[in-house]
């Protein structure tokens, strides 16, 4: 075997071993690497009161109640939902049906008190007129699973 061949195999073998090692590490850390939990995952896990977690999902339509600086809303993944209260400024994109990631903790009464509300933007980009036309023609698909509204983009 020529030295070049040998070096080629060495580099390839290193990459394969590193790849496997990285995959194993990432799999082991899977729980830590997710940025947020869905309402369903939270319902399964029943996190302790006071423990900081991030909750991600859609702001349920018709659930937003504002009173002064405090706002209450439900975060849903369409199978479970969590009631959230928050005091502070909301991001501009916050609205019903919008994906959000909320950081906070449960208080003793099973209410989720948020310290930070982030809007999650989906991967769809379109001009306002197109969005309007899609909504009017009824081709606007809200809320399919991923935690964000996903309109169908067609020409």
């Amino acid at each position, binding site marked *: 075997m020529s030295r*070049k061949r040998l*070096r*080629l195999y060495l*580099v390839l073998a*290193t*990459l394969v071993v*590193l*790849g496997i090692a*990285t995959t194993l590490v*990432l799999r082991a850390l*899977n729980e830590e*690497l*997710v*940025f*947020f*939990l*869905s309402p369903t995952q939270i319902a399964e896990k029943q996190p302790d009161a006071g423990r900081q977690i991030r909750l*991600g999902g859609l702001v349920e339509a018709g659930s937003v109640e504002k009173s002064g600086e405090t706002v209450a809303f439900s975060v849903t993944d369409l199978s479970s939902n969590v009631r959230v209260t928050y005091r502070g400024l*909301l*991001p*501009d*994109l916050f609205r019903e049906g919008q994906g959000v*990631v909320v950081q906070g903790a449960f208080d003793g009464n099973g209410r989720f008190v948020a310290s*930070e*509300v*982030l*809007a*999650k*933007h*989906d*991967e*769809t*980009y*379109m*001009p*306002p*007129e*197109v*969005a*309007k036309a899609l909504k009017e023609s009824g081709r606007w698909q809200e809320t399919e699973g*991923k*935690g*964000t509204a*996903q309109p169908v*983009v067609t*020409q």
Partner: protein
Amino acid sequence: MATAFNLHRFANPGRFLRLASALLPWLTGGAAVLFAIGLYLALVGSPPDYQQGDTVRIMYIHVPSAWMAMMGYALLGAAGASALIWRHPLADVAGEAIAPVGAGFTFVALATGALWGKPTWGTYWVWDARLTSFLVLFFLYVGHIALTHAFDDRQRGRRSAAIIAIVGLINLPIIKYSVDWWNTLHQSESILRMDGPSIHPAMLWPLFVMIAAFTLYFFAVVVTRMKAMLLEARHRAAAFAR
């Protein structure tokens, strides 16, 4: 091996210098024209987004920068591998030429992402899988640059840098698929999707023009740097021989 033999035709620095001189006007000229068209389309000729408004225009810089950052690292890894395996004489030069350029694009992608994140998400930065793995990409580039210059023996520095370039390749699929493998605040892929892009054509075309402009610009800068480094080496050799 026939292919290796053909590759070595370009290994000759003199031949590369002639090729570079012939290519450079096209690369820079093409980049200038495409930037003029792309920037006009991005800033004036494309519609605002239905949710983000004019903030969407940051995408026309952010996405091409991120693509250049990743393409640059793939090339850096390839250069590192051909330097280590085949001792290709231009590979070390290519690696040293690419690294600062790639680091620059990575920085631009991170910075524009932060500026977009504040009005859209409500925060400049979160430690989700996409943003974190992209920050790691920046550190890999910086590590490559640092290692290249870390030793008095240039060859040793370049060899260590080639190793970090290859090892860091693992990060590329992690960046690409981070938005699918884990919940992230960063949205998932808009362009390279199985069911077609989820960006309206009125925004997608300006974005493609910008990506083309960035690509030509990337190669124009890298080829210029390689040319300068080769001429410098030739000059030094001549001065030494005198």
